[in-house]
């Protein structure tokens, strides 16, 4: 079977590559949206406290829906099939870890540190940029890390609603009962997941200020 896999890779190398790139887009776009929207919104919710239950409630609910059902839901709410509904589904699915960790990170900054900073005349923005964000960064990145790994896994399912990516190879292989094709889709997906986990781990360490490293 390994030789069959090798054979398939030789003949369809370009396809596997382009599907891998498609997979990357399928992960990167919803992740970028999730970060850009969830982080600032959650920080806002540490200031305007009544916002937080709504934000965490929504992102929790989205994550609770089984992933397959979430994809199908996209179709039933009229987004149809293809890359757009898949991106929307992946986006809402990735929110929860980011929201939760951003909130934990920012509200975990000790009160005495904030009290001292405000008492010394820090403005709201200075408090955020010079004190809260640097101290919370590690936790926020950890949230992004787990969101990313989940999204890479979920992205292979997006092929079910015609979004392409490595999932379509797996689906094709399953349909043709051809394990070589299934593996040609699975292996790059697994490598992507491990790579993301590794790189984010490094990033997390890099972004932890020296005074906070243990």
């Amino acid at each position: 079977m390994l030789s069959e896999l090798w054979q398939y890779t030789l003949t369809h190398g370009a396809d596997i590559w382009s599907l891998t790139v498609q997979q990357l887009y399928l992960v990167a776009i919803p992740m970028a949206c999730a970060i850009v929207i969830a982080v600032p919104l959650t920080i806002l919710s540490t200031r305007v406290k009544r916002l937080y239950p709504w934000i965490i409630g929504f992102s929790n609910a989205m994550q609770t829906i089984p992933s397959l059902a979430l994809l199908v839901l996209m179709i039933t709410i009229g987004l149809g099939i293809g890359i757009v509904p898949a991106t929307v589904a992946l986006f809402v699915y990735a929110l929860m870890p980011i929201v939760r960790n951003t909130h934990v990170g920012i509200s975990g900054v000790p009160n005495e540190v904030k009290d001292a900073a405000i008492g010394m005349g820090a403005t709201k923005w200075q408090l955020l940029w010079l004190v809260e964000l640097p101290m919370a960064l590690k936790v926020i990145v950890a949230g992004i890390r787990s969101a990313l790994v989940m999204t890479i896994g979920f992205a292979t399912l997006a092929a079910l609603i015609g979004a392409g990516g490595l999932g379509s190879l797996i689906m094709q292989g399953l349909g043709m009962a051809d394990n070589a094709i299934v593996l040609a889709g699975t292996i790059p997906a697994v490598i992507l997941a491990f790579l993301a986990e590794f790189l984010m781990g490094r990033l997390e360490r890099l972004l932890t200020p020296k005074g906070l490293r243990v």
Partner: protein
Amino acid sequence: MLTFSHLGKTYPDGTDAVVDFNLEVARGELIALIGPSGCGKSTTLRMVNRLIEPTSGTVMLDGQDYKSMDPVELRRRLGYVIQQIGLIPHLTIAENISFVLRLQGVNKQKRRERASELMALAGLPADQYLDRYPRELSGGQQQRIGVLRALAHDPEIILMDEPFGALDPLMREQLQDELKRLQQAVQKTIIFVTHDMDEALRIADRIVIMRAGRVIQVATPEEMLRNPADEFVAEFIGRQRLLRQASEVAVREIMLDNPAMVSADTGLAQSLEFMRRRKVDSVLVKGPNDVFVGAARARDVQRALEAREQSKISAYARHGSVFVGPDDPAMNAIHHMLAYGLDAIPVLGPGKVVVGIVTRGTLAGVLDDALRTSAAAPALEANA
């Protein structure tokens, strides 16, 4: 300089935290606000830099109503030190000291220069500390930095909210002396909140004693000791301080009963961490059956750690034979301290088990009384 006029704070639920607080503070004066917890002393302090907004009255700064100023600008004219210190953990000591300058947009090199300057002022070795992080420092060292930080932008007024309350008595006294010295050197006006009468008597130019949001008495330490305004003030000053002599007081009555203690087989790093956590500069070491072995100083342990010694804390326990019993007169503890040049003496019960500790701080109060009564003694002799 600073005038409080009819300052008051009533919370929405109707509780009066501070009622009609009036005070005129002169330039260079150190005012201690004191009273039992919940008396409104901290609230009063936090109203000065508008971390709490008063519900009535105002504060005048050099004749200007502070309500006309922007709170951020106001705070940058004041220094602020709190009990929990609140150093920023991801910034180095240099960056922490000069944090206010950073808020004001001063460039990095100038900030560092200012930090070294202040370290020199406090007599701390700058090159040894500037690039360290707060968690590498003991509690006492951290609060020294906390005080320097409040001086960075050369404010005329410094607010201190129980700055030494979490430190052990010995360290507290050292810092009180340093603060007093520093204040004489830089001539700042200081508003100092404390619940410790010893501290207030030691460092304040004037003491404001509060109860239930109201000012009970404003007086110099001397005046307050001689003429307490009422029962409450007298009680707060402590009758024993006014009446007793060192020779009559037993060690038991003045000792602190919860000394920092580790067992002999504790590792060095662990012991140091424990001292940091307890914010003390030395720790008592106990062997099997809780028998007292000696006292280890943070300085020695730190040095051994840096030299990568693998030994246990017991190797650094000194003066195992120097102690007093709980029923000995306090005078004995003083003799021991002088004879061995120590800052603290353990108190051992039966079986050489540690029951407490006497520090210089606890003795200072007793000595003070002894001096006061001995001034009255010659009259008695003349009669005899």
